[in-house]
């Protein structure tokens, strides 16, 4: 495991430079938070890493070059992501959602059989994300927070080694946030985690390292404290030197 390395990443939409020469180094086992104002290029960064948008530069994970591969090929290399607005299969049950996430490596012919037993990885994930009680409910009927948990559960059964989470706690209650944060810490033991988040409180409590993006570039990088102390960050976020409570 050698973590995620991004070198000189650039994404251009019709002349608009969304990501402008980003370098990023996320070592294995890190929980890296990426923050920045709207339009800083955070989500586009994840889109580029997962192959959704075309980019130049280089991205390597686990010694595999990712750029230029198709989305599903990148996923098969152990790269998993969630979406800002939770993207689960609403017409399928929680169990089915998780089971699908476990599936790409199954033999094609085995797909033609119905699921006899709940696979152990799925059962585990159900317990881990606390959705056992609703496993036969349609995912579309879940509360917003539960959907986000379901997405994380899907990453678990997918056995992703690099988790790219796009605002995973948006809309969650405080206790749900705490639980999610704890989960992230546990997951990082044998994975690499990259989180896009606006919630500063959540960030302060659970981030190990932080990257600040602005206008498609990396503005600052370091521990939470280092970044908070960086005057350029304060400038970008508030246009003036902030009081402690505003950033924290």
């Amino acid at each position: 495991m050698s973590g995620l390395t991004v070198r000189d990443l650039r994404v251009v939409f019709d002349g608009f430079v969304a990501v402008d020469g980003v370098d990023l180094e996320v070592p294995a086992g890190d929980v890296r938070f990426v923050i920045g104002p709207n339009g800083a290029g955070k989500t586009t960064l994840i889109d580029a890493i997962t192959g959704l948008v075309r980019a130049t530069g280089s991205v390597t994970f686990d010694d595999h070059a990712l750029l230029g591969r198709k989305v599903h090929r990148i996923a098969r290399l152990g790269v998993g992501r969630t979406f800002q607005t939770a993207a689960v299969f609403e017409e399928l049950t929680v169990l089915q959602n998780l089971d699908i996430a476990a599936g790409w490596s199954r033999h094609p012919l085995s797909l033609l059989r119905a699921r006899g037993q709940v696979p152990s990885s799925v059962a585990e994930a159900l317990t881990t994300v606390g959705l056992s009680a609703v496993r036969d409910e349609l995912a579309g009927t879940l509360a917003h927070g539960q959907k986000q948990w379901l997405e994380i559960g899907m990453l678990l059964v997918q056995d992703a080694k690099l988790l790219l989470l796009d605002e995973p706690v948006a809309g969650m209650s405080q206790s749900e946030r705490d639980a999610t944060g704890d989960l992230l810490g546990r997951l990082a033991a044998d994975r690499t985690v990259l989180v896009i988040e606006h919630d500063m409180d959540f960030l302060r409590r659970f981030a190990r390292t932080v990257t600040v993006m602005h206008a498609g570039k990396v503005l600052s990088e370091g521990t939470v404290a280092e970044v908070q102390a960086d005057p350029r960050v304060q400038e970008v976020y508030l246009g003036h030197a902030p009081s402690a409570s505003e950033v924290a």
Partner: protein
Amino acid sequence: MTLVLSQLFTGISIGAVLLLIALGLSLTFGQMNVINMAHGEFIMAGAYTVYVLQQVITSAGASLIVALPIAFAVAGAMGVLLEFLLIRRLYGRPLDTLLVTWGVALILQQAARDIFGAPNVQTRAPDLLTGSIHLPGGLVIASSRVFILVLALTAVAALTLVLKTTSLGRRIRAVVQNRDLAAVSGLATGRVDRLTFFIGSGLAGIAGVALTLIGPIGPAMGTNIIVNAFLVVVVGGIGQLKGTVIVAFALGILQSMVEYTTTVSVASVIVFIVIVAFLQWRPQGLFTLRTRSLA
């Protein structure tokens, strides 16, 4: 040489007809993502408008001129009615609108049969538009085709002007780009939708008037043309007027050239193959709107 030129003009004139038919679709399908299979029947309504008017106005030329705005209004009103009664309930289900409007098309066809009779009806064209224009070099082109070409280009220009400069145009584009945001910012999206549909369907009415000059006027006239019109819009790219214009002429010229050297049936098969090949190259059509959405 004359032959190549006259065949080229034929291609351009086929393209002009395609453009006129597809223009309204490009608006309703492109801007609103509504696949209106009854578009062909709106064209039919435009053509029957000429027929009905000629029962009242005896001068062929005058009736044609008067028919243009009336057909626009008649077809446009039908479009608004369709939008209000059915399509409004189906936003976000484009495939379902396709089937529903096919049903509407069937009903309109049968209604035309019951009102005007199953046989084609006859309209008179002004003498000016049944003759031909002799150009230097022995080139002879049909004046009706020139009329249609001018009409098509005028319609494109007018539509572009409306979309680019008027407040209605701005609102249409706002709704296209982000329906939810537009609604939140206080735009009456329902009204904008209906207006868009009015213009798109109205253009079908104009096309119907033009078609009386070159083809039959009957209950089945819509079905014969609708598939090709959709291909033009799809290949041109959704929501892209310029794509529709370029592709209409390109397909027209391709069709006329292949048809000249082979047969009509071989030509339609070849055109289909070219389209599939083209979509391999540009799956979203000639021009595309880039978005970051996950769909």
